């Protein structure tokens, strides 16, 4: 069930109405059943794997809290192995098999091929695995007590708004909210609904339209000019932002309608003046997860300059691998790690006062550096990514397809509209200001405009969200 489908709209309305009709003590059960239903709409049998890891983590959390000394660590390791084991099996088995087979073949040592697995990746696996891991790590660190209510803990992992593509939550933020009794709050419901509409607008009116151009160029990349490759890469930068931040807005909005506050995931990342700042604004729930549980665990910046660079690089490489089991994602992460290390080495500061031209230049430079990494993210093979990267700089000699200016104009208008809204309004204001408490005119106008634009300009048969595959 996709967020950008009418099926989800019906599901959401039914669950929300039932949620407010039921007494507080039964609400967790409703949300858990709804979340199970939501998850099972993809591949039903995979819920068994999820329930197994939930069971292990639940027991591990309590044991970690009760035990002392080495035993605590043993339960933490058990939880991590269970979570990472599932992730490794489903997501990385074929990747490693592929590489080992290539290595054995290259070395001509033995004539043997490891078998491949023909299975579909459980949806949102990387997201809920990391969320589950953050729970046991926080309990181990003593930052949060173990959850005694199995149903509430299961809901923490499975809460449907953020089950398949985040934000990757922390127990401190979400678990107490499941215990609190929520009352219907008119302002919050209206704000949440508007946020959902804004997210849907970004996905179906902008992201999916950009996707059409990106696909037309990337699927026939060898036939296009360098200009088309650049335009498609810019379009992909817009597509992935609208797709993922659109999803996040819908997740936050749908949770807010029921009174839950999830963590923010995006803060206008393409207005960042450095790559370091970009990562403070892009997929914030993952970047802070990597910082808190990986970078800091590796020693962070406490062990001297050289080790700091190593830690940054390693963190981003693993962050890349988290996205997908392919060398493209490893390189994507590696490039980001390299940017971050270089900025640290050069002592790049973005907080100091800067001229208007300086700011624009920095934003443009950062955007282009990020665009180069998106090539590896979007390309389906390493060969394709390398070809496109090379021809972004070196002109293509034989061009078979001309740039489709009609499509470029279509996406240009939509991206322009997005930039206008983000730069002129969202940069200075917050969704809270669309509360009906300040008068009904503004929220009504926003909701009507977005609904009408979605109805008339939205891609009705759009694809699923890009991040669902991770």
């Amino acid at each position, binding site marked *: 069930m996709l967020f950008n*489908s*009418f099926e989800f709209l019906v599901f959401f309305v039914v669950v929300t109405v039932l949620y407010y009709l039921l007494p507080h003590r039964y609400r967790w059960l409703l949300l858990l059943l709804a979340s199970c239903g939501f998850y099972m709409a993809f591949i039903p049998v995979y819920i068994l794997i999820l329930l197994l890891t939930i069971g292990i983590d639940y027991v591990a959390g309590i044991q970690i809290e009760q035990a002392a000394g080495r035993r605590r660590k043993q339960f933490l390791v058990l939880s991590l192995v269970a979570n990472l084991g599932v992730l490794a099996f489903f997501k990385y088995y074929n990747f490693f098999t592929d590489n080992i087979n290539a290595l054995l073949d290259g070395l001509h040592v033995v004539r043997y091929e490891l078998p491949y697995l023909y299975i579909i990746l459980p949806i949102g696996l990387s997201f809920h695995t990391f969320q589950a891991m953050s729970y046991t790590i926080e309990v181990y660190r003593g930052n949060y007590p173990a959850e005694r209510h199995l149903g509430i803990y299961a809901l923490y992992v499975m809460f449907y708004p953020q089950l398949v593509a985040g934000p990757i939550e922390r127990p401190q933020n979400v678990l107490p909210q499941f215990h609190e009794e929520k009352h219907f709050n008119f302002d919050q419901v209206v704000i949440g609904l508007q946020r959902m509409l804004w997210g849907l607008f970004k996905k179906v009116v902008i992201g999916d339209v950009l996707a059409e151009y990106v696909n037309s160029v990337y699927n026939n990349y060898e036939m296009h000019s360098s200009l088309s490759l650049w335009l498609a890469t810019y379009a992909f930068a817009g597509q992935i932002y609208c797709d993922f931040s659109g999803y996040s807005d819908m997740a936050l909005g749908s949770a807010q309608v029921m009174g839950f506050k999830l963590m923010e995931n995006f803060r206008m990342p393409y207005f960042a003046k450095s790559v370091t700042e970009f990562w403070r604004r892009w997929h914030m729930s993952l970047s802070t997860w990597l910082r808190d549980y990986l970078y800091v665990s590796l020693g962070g910046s406490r062990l001297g300059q050289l080790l700091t660079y190593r830690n940054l690089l390693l963190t981003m490489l693993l962050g890349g691998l988290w996205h997908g089991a392919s060398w493209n994602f490893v390189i994507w992460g590696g490039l980001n790690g390299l940017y971050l290390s270089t900025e640290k080495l050069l002592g790049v500061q973005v907080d100091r006062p800067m001229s208007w031209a300086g700011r624009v230049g920095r934003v443009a430079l950062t955007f282009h550096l990020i665009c180069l990494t998106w090539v590896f993210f979007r390309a389906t093979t390493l060969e394709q990514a390398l070809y496109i990267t090379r021809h972004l700089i070196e002109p293509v000699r034989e*061009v078979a397809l001309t740039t489709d200016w009609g499509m470029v104009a279509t996406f240009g208008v939509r991206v322009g509209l997005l930039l206008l809204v983000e730069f002129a309004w969202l940069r200075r204001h917050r969704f809270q200001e669309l509360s009906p408490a300040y008068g009904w005119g503004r929220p009504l106008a926003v909701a009507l405009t977005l609904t009408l634009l979605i109805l008339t300009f939205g891609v*009705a048969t759009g694809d699923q969200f890009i991040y669902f595959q991770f």
Partner: protein
Amino acid sequence: MKKFGFFFLLFSTLLLALDQGGAWVLDRLHERVVLGQRDGLLITYLRLPDLPQLVVLGNSRTAVNVCPDSLPGAFSLAHNGTTQVFQTGLLSVLHQQQRLPPAILLHIDLDEYIRPTRAEDIHLLKYYYGQAPLVTAYSREASWLEPLKQCFGLYRHNGRIPGLLRNWYMQRRHPDQPLNQGYEPSVPAAADSLRTAYSLAKLNAESGQLNRGHLRYLQDFVQLCQQQNVRLICFTNSYYQQPHHVAAAGRLVDSLLQRAQVPYLNYASQPIAELSHNIGYWRDATHLNTRGIPLNSQVLARQVSDLLPPTGLRAEIPTLDDIAKP
């Protein structure tokens, strides 16, 4: 809760008013615009004073490769990027509007039979949802919530407003322009041969595993033609060079058409030799340029004429302005 109820009621009322108002304006515009492949061509056809003897249906391999002027009394309703579900839906629209021609020449793209079924193509005809029975039925199959979506008048115009406005503007600017009758020829260009070689390699790289999904729509098409006594001829255009999947897909289609006793001119299996040996005739592996189109159209016209009863002279082609007049 009460406050939210009021807010929601106000929102719904305003939305309904704006939606219906907007849809009314767009519906009027839709009826006036006779330019453009997606709707204009169909409206043009529906308003033609005399029904053509033959209607050509298909995707871009028809719009680009077949010149309707080569065929006796023909009008092309070919639409780029569509599959069989669209053609069957379109036939249902013609039936519902009581504008079925005496004969139909349907292009069957064999590539469809090795690719996933694209049932969502029916949404290109969503304007006729609730009117044409097969459009309604297929749309409901594609999404069970289609009836709910169709409650919004603006949804009928989803994704087509910029095109509609552009066509309306062009039509006002050039009212004397003759109708192109669904023919979109492509002039030869320097990159044609490179594109042809590249696209042929891409075609051959496809899995080639047969998908029978589209057969069902073809079957419905044949059935409706038979019920309405419409003479149906099917054909498949040549490829520059035959991709590996063509033979199997051709046999699959042929078996259905043979059973229904529908003549099938399969130039993919029995290609026009001159086209297959000359890359200069091609824009890419499946589309001809204006060097190759006359040859392809002439061969097709000769064979189709043999299968059709003799017809009189075709009516004079009207201009855009003639058709757009209420």
